[in-house]
């Protein structure tokens, strides 16, 4: 019997979804008159025609893409290194995983105040040590900074999944490849990397889901300024800062559509790795 699970899942998903749809067709301004009646597609048209919409979509995709590339590449490299027998392996592994346990808000604040502060930040000190002018990270290089912070948070996740994949590898395959004349780079390219394909797929899919809704890191660092306004952040501004629930709900529906477009693309590109 799968009915109870299906009912639970449907309820879980359908109630918020229906409410979002419901409000998206209303002019609803909580502090300025409340429910002002049905307005049809006006909210949808206004949300898209706003000058912030397309930049927000672009920013969202840039953050997701940038973080995915960095975490997957560095994750593979770190996983390969952590698989080597080294002294203090257990401690090193825990240290590598640690960032994942730090709350997004906390890590955003730590990066902002301790590393990226242009006066007292760690980076500023290093820059000055070499006689260079410190970079105003969050204002002059806002997108790279955000991608860096979010990558730092998600790198442990990618590393952990890829490390377990590497450890589950049949070492006889590597030995066979060695006997067959494959050099270390060849063994990585022809044997290890294809073996990791499935784990990489899982990392990309799961991270995409979470990265599309990144919010706290932006909120505590740039508050959406300097071109770091993602779709999620734009919706937040519309609903809470402009107090326009209808407009925000329409944005929420667009976010759902964007997430599904991304999901379809991802499943087309990497999903076949999950078969068999």
């Amino acid at each position, binding site marked *: 019997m799968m009915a109870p699970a299906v009912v639970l899942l449907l309820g879980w998903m359908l109630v918020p979804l229906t409410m979002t749809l419901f409000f998206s067709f209303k002019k609803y301004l909580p502090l300025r008159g409340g429910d002002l009646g049905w307005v049809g597609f006006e909210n949808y048209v206004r949300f898209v025609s706003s000058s912030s919409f397309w930049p927000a979509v672009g920013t969202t995709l840039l953050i997701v893409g940038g973080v995915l590339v960095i975490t997957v590449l560095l994750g593979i490299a770190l996983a390969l290194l952590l698989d080597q027998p080294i002294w203090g392996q257990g401690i090193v592994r825990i240290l590598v995983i640690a960032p994942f346990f730090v709350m997004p808000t906390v890590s955003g604040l730590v990066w902002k105040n301790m590393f990226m502060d242009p006066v007292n930040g760690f980076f500023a000190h290093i820059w000055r040590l070499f006689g260079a002018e410190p970079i105003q990270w969050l204002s002059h290089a806002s997108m790279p900074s955000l991608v860096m912070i979010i990558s730092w948070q998600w790198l442990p996740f990618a590393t952990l999944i890829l490390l377990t994949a590497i450890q589950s590898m*049949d070492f*006889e*395959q590597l*030995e*066979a*490849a*060695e*006997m*067959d*004349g*494959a050099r270390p780079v*060849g063994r990585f390219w*022809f*044997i290890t990397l*294809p*073996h990791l*394909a499935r784990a990489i797929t899982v990392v990309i899919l799961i991270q995409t889901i979470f990265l599309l809704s990144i919010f706290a890191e932006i909120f505590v660092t740039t508050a959406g300024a300097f071109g770091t306004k993602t779709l999620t952040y734009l919706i937040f501004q519309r609903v809470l800062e402009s107090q326009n629930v209808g407009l925000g709900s329409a944005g929420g529906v667009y976010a759902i559509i964007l997430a599904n477009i991304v999901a379809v693309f991802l499943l087309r590109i990497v999903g076949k790795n999950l078969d*068999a």
Partner: protein
Amino acid sequence: MKQIQLTQVSKRFGDVEVIPPLDLEIEDGEFVVFVGPSGCGKSTLLRLIAGLEDVTSGAVIINGEDATGIPPARRSLAMVFQSYALYPHMSVRKNIAFPLRMAGLDKAEQNRRVEDAANVLNLTEYLDRRPGQLSGGQRQRVAIGRAIVREPTAFLFDEPLSNLDAALRVGMRLEISELHKRLATTMIYVTHDQVEAMTMADKIVVLQLGVIEQIGSPLELYRNPQNIFVAGFIGSPRMNLLEGSEAAAHNAHTIGIRPEHISISTDKGDWEGVVGVTEHLGSDTFFHVSCPAFANPLTVRAGGDVDLSYGTKIFLTPDKAHLHRFDDKGLRLT
């Protein structure tokens, strides 16, 4: 011609000496089987020859050339692994072609060699499948195919049949023997199964705890085991090994007699005993006979038509010409 030569080769893992220094010579075209109980160092010895493990001391000489420091890929040896170690994401064709691709052969030559190997191994119709879609026996053949396309000077097999069921194993045994006859290339084969050793080998190397107990042809080992270990290990069912007064009567610490060299009589004989469990194989019948004179029951072979029920009192007479005598160190007395 001596093709592979080990001189004073030893291997230590940390403080544990897995293989004390040993010498071994393998002739060109020979089918050599390393056999021994698990943990006897036979796989390690094979990996030392392959170069997958480094020797602690001594030299591995292949084709008259010192190969001790040469990496595995350049020793011109091909290995078939116990798990087959096929590359799961590549088709059978790509699996077999992999060593050729790594060697940088052109596409046409690669294809020609792959087709040849597939022909020899009856894999032609499976070339475009993935290893996951093949049966155990077919995977085994792909692994062998990947080894033969390289045209190596010697093949190394590491317990290649242990993952197959009994019926397939007998079939693959024949196929590998046949392949050896056809290619006439040196093969080194590791197994813990003495039946495989007996049926396939030109030369058997019996190992125990990293030490070579005896080297010889299958029948040589069967007829003249140099010590108790070889006597007990080679032959199925095992040789009966007897100690005590009966052994002393033959001026030995232990005497050994194979099941087929004992005759059964219902009225007279040297040893009196009671029939225990009977194993009917059709062609032969094996009786487990408890004799008051010996601690362990004796295994006795009789023809397939002999039938004695449980508890029957019988007499056994060993064939004196086939009695093996061993001293208190377990070495053969002549």
